[in-house]
């Protein structure tokens, strides 16, 4: 009976006895790699990368603010949304990975988990932005979300049928629910992880594991419906059951790519030497590679079924985009988001090299932003044909808005890194991550 209890402990019990745990903590304390200098990020080092990002980000946001008056409000909002959904994808993906690592009791990723937790806990930035966007949309009666416009709703049978879901009040309530779900989940996980650094309470990992298992379905539903609300309902006629998975693919991919960049920068600052090794990068690279393929699989399946069944309200989503000057983006997605990274990341040396993997990570983030642009931007032209051939100033505003949002997020991320050790210092399975090795 006690054996069974040891193998299947309740959330507050661990299989590790007090003596074993004290012994393990001792060995952590002796380990030279876990010395204070190696696993903490001083503010001065972090701001070397953080401050330029903040300056560039603020400048870009000023440029995009000018865009509100010089180009158009809707165009600037679309640009900002591309950036916001890129950083939302990064944060949500990190939340997903953190919960998956907890739920699966992953050992190898523990030395990288704190950065996933940090990025996940930054989800409040895109979440607050989404709330702001939702309020702006409702107050302006639809800037990008035309279904909020009373003139469009007037006598529109489709919107009458969809009214129980697509209405302003429920929309605002939903956005608040998503924000609360994400912020609470990410705060709890980071909080437990930080608390175990201080107290060495090994039951906290159990608790995180228990709640992560419930967190994953919550994450899945909130992410799916958020993607429905903000991205799919840009065109209220269009529907795709694959849409949530499509956005989730970008989440998991964006997060793994960003962690590759974060880890490479941290290592080049002389931190985490021997703690995060090429073995960890190799596995991270496998995740990036896997989700490149997953994104393609989901995206192509969606396109393929729509292409075959040929139902007007579905095909119009693609034909409209390709006919009003966004065909190039369609081709860029096929080649740039699948063929090129697939052929590059399939090579083992590239996954094992921090520099090359982080370059690929940055490239993939650009591709994710372009993917969001492919979803959001053409809707402007559908609403107002004068956007169909964008002027250079409009391109500039889009790029500036995206860069502004992402750079400010980057500054927040560097600041977050200085607030706690770079790894969970007293995780019961830390030794597994420290000696992690790929035997293939």
């Amino acid at each position, binding site marked *: 009976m006690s054996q069974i209890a040891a193998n299947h402990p309740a959330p507050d019990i661990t299989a590790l006895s007090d003596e074993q745990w004290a012994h393990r903590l001792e060995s952590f304390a002796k380990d030279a790699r876990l010395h204070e200098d190696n696993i903490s990020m001083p503010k001065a080092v972090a701001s070397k990368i953080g401050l330029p990002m903040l300056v560039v980000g603020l400048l870009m946001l000023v440029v995009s603010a000018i865009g509100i008056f010089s180009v158009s409000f809707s165009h600037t909002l679309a640009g900002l949304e591309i950036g916001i959904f890129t950083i939302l994808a990064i944060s949500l993906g990190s939340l997903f990975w953190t919960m998956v690592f907890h739920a699966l009791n992953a050992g190898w990723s523990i030395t990288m988990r704190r950065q996933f937790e940090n990025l996940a806990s930054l989800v409040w930035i895109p979440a607050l932005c989404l709330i702001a966007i939702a309020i702006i949309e409702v107050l302006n009666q639809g800037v990008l979300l035309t279904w909020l416009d009373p003139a469009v709703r007037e006598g529109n049978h489709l919107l009458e049928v969809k009214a129980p879901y697509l209405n302003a009040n429920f929309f605002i309530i939903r956005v608040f629910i998503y924000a609360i779900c994400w912020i609470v989940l990410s705060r709890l996980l980071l909080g437990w992880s930080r608390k175990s650094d201080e107290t060495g309470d090994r039951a906290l990992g159990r608790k995180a594991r228990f709640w992560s298992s419930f967190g994953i379905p919550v994450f899945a539903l909130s992410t799916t419906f958020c993607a429905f609300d903000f991205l799919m309902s840009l065109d209220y006629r269009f529907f795709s059951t694959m849409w949530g998975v499509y956005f989730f693919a970008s989440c998991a991919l964006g997060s793994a790519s960003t962690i590759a960049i974060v880890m490479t920068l941290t290592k080049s600052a002389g931190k985490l030497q021997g703690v995060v090794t090429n073995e960890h990068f190799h596995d991270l690279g496998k995740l990036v590679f896997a989700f490149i393929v997953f994104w393609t699989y989901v995206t192509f399946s969606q*396109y393929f079924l729509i*292409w*075959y069944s040929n139902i007007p309200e579905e095909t119009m989503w693609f034909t409209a985009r390709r006919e009003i000057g966004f065909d190039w983006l369609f081709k860029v997605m096929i080649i740039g988001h699948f063929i090129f990274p697939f052929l590059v990341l399939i090579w083992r040396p590239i996954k094992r090299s921090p520099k090359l993997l982080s370059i690929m990570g940055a490239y993939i983030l650009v591709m994710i932003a372009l993917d969001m642009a492919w979803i959001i931007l053409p809707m402007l032209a559908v609403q107002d044909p004068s956007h169909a051939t964008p002027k250079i100033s409009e391109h500039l505003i889009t790029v500036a808005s995206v860069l502004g949002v992402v750079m400010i997020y980057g500054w927040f991320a560097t600041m977050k890194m200085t607030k706690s050790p770079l790894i969970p210092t007293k995780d019961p399975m830390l030794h597994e991550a420290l000696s992690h*090795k790929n*035997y293939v």
Partner: protein
Amino acid sequence: MNHKDLISFAADYFPMLVRKPAPKYVSESGNRIHGMVAEFHETPKVFHAAEMVRDAGYSKWDVHSPFPIHDIETAMGFKPTKLPMMAGAAAITGVSIGALLQWGTTTFLYPTVVQGKPFDAWEPFVPVMFELGILLTAFMCIFGMLALNGLPRFHHPLFSHERFYKVSDDRFMICIESHDPKFDPSATRALLEKAGGTDIALIEDDD
């Protein structure tokens, strides 16, 4: 892969086509010598012995163990396998066959109107290209792996060595094969003795 390797590779599968090269070493009974085995009792010992054999520059040799030993591949100095390249070539072949097969038939040979779709639309080709790519890659992985390992085969000279059966129980063995360019009965025996091997024996090829 030089031509000698190629010949011995072909000989594994088509023994009737290839005359085996004259043996370098024969035993007193006239049989060719397959190689020399040494026994080890502990994992660290066989691990360090493997490092010594690797450093001595042997290339045709193997370590036999009842269970997988972590890092033995670095101790043995394995070169990365060619299998990924072969699988990649198979994948490209599969995708190309899938594309050509469908494009040729639906666009040129039997253009048929299906649901009013264009004859040369690339979209319906993708699943078949994907599946054929996967199929040929999987075949290459399995059969390529078997071929690189010289499998399947009915018998192996090591099985004629009675003590060899202990490697499935409690013993480790290193076998250095006689067609290794560095193989020399006395020098190899000295090396294996220095590495801590016991019960060193020559194995005859009895086919």
